[in-house]
């Protein structure tokens, strides 16, 4: 693990160190670009897998009553959908973006620990194969919600819960290794002149995210380990009969779970902070305040976890503290939205597909932020808790937030990665199709939630029927739009108009200014000088 970057040869032609041939290239690769690609494909497959389960959910909820699936199977669908989307789609996509972009953005030849990088990725397909296999086991897969509250997951969990526990352990190990790699890369391998406060915001937000990951993924590992020993080795961490407490499970889970929320959104902030200045043709407004806002969001994220537990019978003092601390987070988040809007102010804006998705992110993530503020108010949360209002809230921040930023990042950087421009018309169709569909899908869920429709239930009262039908139609349309996206991705990889090295008129950063499109397999073997 040498941290010295040496250049033993001075020749200019590095391109002949190309990738190995055949499938083994992908298995044995230690190249950050290859591993980034692997992560992104895994995440796309998981998006479609989790999306297919969402389609089953929306199909069953199209009408009141039970039409297509058994309640127990429905519970497995909601559980697996959540787990797969959080751990399989969103998180690996951001790690994939980090692998592709962080070395190119800071002028490093590769990640700091390339072999460990290979391992971090290749653990994941096995973790998800184990998780997916539980659906075919006797007693079914996990059916206790993605939050796997005890005692549902301990005393009453199906036998396959142990496979779920092992899968979570593997995902945690992968995340922790990937994060250590990213931190070591950012702190040790920046090109000369690339000071911390000159780093692109995507690098900054990922540095902070990586610290969050190494701090909370082990807590999750601890929680599932306690579950395992409760289930099989006679401990009573979460069992009242032996002096334990099931509410404590929720505390430990959300101590991981709330920072996890920011793990899924901070890199998105970095992506948006790269795209908006490019298409507004103005430098990012308030760079340093963006850095400080990201850091304060990360610190605050450790202090607000119990706002997920307002209805567990907390004393008033606790509710007040967690309510105020939660609402405090809207201040740094507001700083970010303000800075993006101010960056666009009087800019000469154009609206290519990445910009459209970025703007969609800003508008709709903010909608999700507002419903989050409502949920953060303890006295009214009693009404919203565990209703479809919560479902609407976190899908606005995770789908039109995190996922939109990932799609925006794809359109923004794919010409750089492949050397081909994507088809602008198809990209715009993808944006408008997705955006209309996603609002038809999730906006009505605010209304049924406020009217009292509980989440995670396969049947509902008649008065919710119309809104659920609208929601389901939006869901099918949104799902189809992502199949269309798959077509765009493949089409762009296979060919297209040649992209210029700078790709976008207003693009800045080492990856656009110093590297050709596509970049050579080994880029920045000579560190660039950053002014």
């Amino acid at each position, binding site marked *: 693990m040498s941290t010295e970057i040496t250049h033993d040869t001075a020749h200019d032609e590095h391109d002949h160190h190309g990738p190995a041939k055949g499938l083994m290239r992908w298995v044995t690769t230690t190249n950050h670009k290859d591993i980034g690609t692997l992560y992104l494909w895994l995440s796309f497959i998981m998006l479609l897998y989790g999306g297919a389960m969402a389609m089953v959910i929306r199909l069953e909820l199209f009408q009141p009553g039970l039409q297509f699936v058994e309640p127990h199977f429905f519970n497995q669908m909601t559980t697996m959908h959540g787990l797969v989307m959080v751990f399989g789609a969103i998180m690996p996509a951001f790690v994939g973006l980090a692998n592709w972009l962080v070395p190119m953005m800071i002028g490093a030849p590769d990640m700091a620990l390339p072999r460990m990088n290979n391992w971090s990725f290749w653990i994941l397909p096995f973790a998800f194969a184990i998780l997916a296999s539980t659906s075919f086991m006797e007693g079914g897969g996990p059916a206790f919600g993605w939050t796997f509250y005890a005692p549902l997951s301990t005393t009453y969990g199906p036998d396959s819960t142990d496979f779920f526990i092992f899968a979570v352990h593997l995902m945690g190990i992968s995340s922790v290794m990937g994060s250590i790699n990213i931190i*070591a890369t950012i702190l040790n391998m920046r090109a000369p002149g690339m000071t911390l406060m000159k780093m692109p915001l995507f690098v900054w937000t990922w540095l902070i995210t990586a610290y969050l990951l190494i*701090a909370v993924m082990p807590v999750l590992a601890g929680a599932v380990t306690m579950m395992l020993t409760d289930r099989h080795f006679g401990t009573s961490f979460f069992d009242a009969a032996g002096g334990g407490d099931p509410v404590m499970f929720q505390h430990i889970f959300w*101590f991981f779970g709330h920072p996890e929320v920011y793990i899924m959104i901070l890199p998105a902030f970095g992506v948006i902070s790269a795209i908006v200045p490019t298409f507004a043709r103005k430098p990012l407004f308030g760079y340093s305040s963006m850095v400080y806002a990201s850091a304060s969001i990360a610190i605050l994220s450790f202090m607000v976890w119990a706002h997920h537990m307002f209805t567990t019978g907390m*004393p008033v003092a606790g509710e007040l503290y967690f309510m105020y601390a939660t609402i405090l987070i809207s201040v740094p988040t507001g700083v970010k939205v303000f800075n993006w809007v101010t960056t666009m102010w009087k800019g000469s804006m154009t609206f290519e597909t990445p910009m459209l998705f970025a703007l969609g992110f800003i508008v709709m993530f903010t909608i999700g932020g507002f419903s989050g503020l409502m949920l953060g108010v303890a006295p009214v949360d009693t009404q919203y808790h565990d209703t479809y209002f919560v479902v609407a809230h976190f899908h606005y921040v995770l789908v039109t937030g995190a996922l939109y930023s990932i799609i925006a990042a794809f359109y923004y950087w794919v010409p750089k990665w492949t050397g081909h421009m994507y088809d602008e018309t198809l990209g715009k169709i993808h944006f408008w199709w997705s955006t209309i569909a996603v609002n038809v899908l999730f906006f009505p869920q605010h209304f049924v939630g406020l009217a009292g429709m509980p989440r995670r239930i396969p049947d509902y009262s008649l008065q919710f029927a119309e809104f659920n039908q609208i929601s389901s139609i939006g869901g099918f349309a949104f799902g189809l739009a992502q199949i269309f996206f798959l077509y765009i991705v493949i089409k762009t990889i296979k060919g297209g108009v040649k992209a210029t090295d700078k790709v976008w008129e207003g693009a800045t950063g080492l990856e656009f200014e110093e590297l050709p499109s596509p970049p050579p397999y080994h880029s920045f073997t000579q560190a660039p000088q950053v002014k």
Partner: protein
Amino acid sequence: MKTSPLKLALIPVLMFGFGFAMVPLYDVICDITGLNGKTGRIQAAEITDPVDRSRTIEVRFLANTSSGLPWHFEPLVKKMEIHPGQVYEAMYRVRSTSKDKTLGQAIPSVSPGTAAEHFNKTECFCFTQQALEGYETRDMPLRFVVGRDISDKIEQITLSYTFFSQDQG
């Protein structure tokens, strides 16, 4: 200044430990604040407060058995009017419906949680495990006192016991 990945790896190791440290930490916090309704235990000799006859608090008794324990468990008195500072006795009756010897442990919980730290027991069947012979019926006493310093806002306290099976397997 170079960052060593091995030093970084210490953070996840420590945080894994912290996850487990939350268990005793949680108990301590609950103990101090009475958060999850865990009650106190005192010796009869420690009760020195004069009785506060100006206040009356209603205490309700709940009794449950968890699944897997074949017992009928009920309070003989459903509720009581009490004065803070005075010791009272409440009786519970438990009857086994199994032909075999069974073992149970009662876990108390007091609501509202803020009353828990003022709810003290001098004698309780929950202090030890209870073993019942086949079809045995037993009356079990609970002696308790509610402290005088309990908040004025509390007019009603619910004491709930759940018997959990302690039989192995």
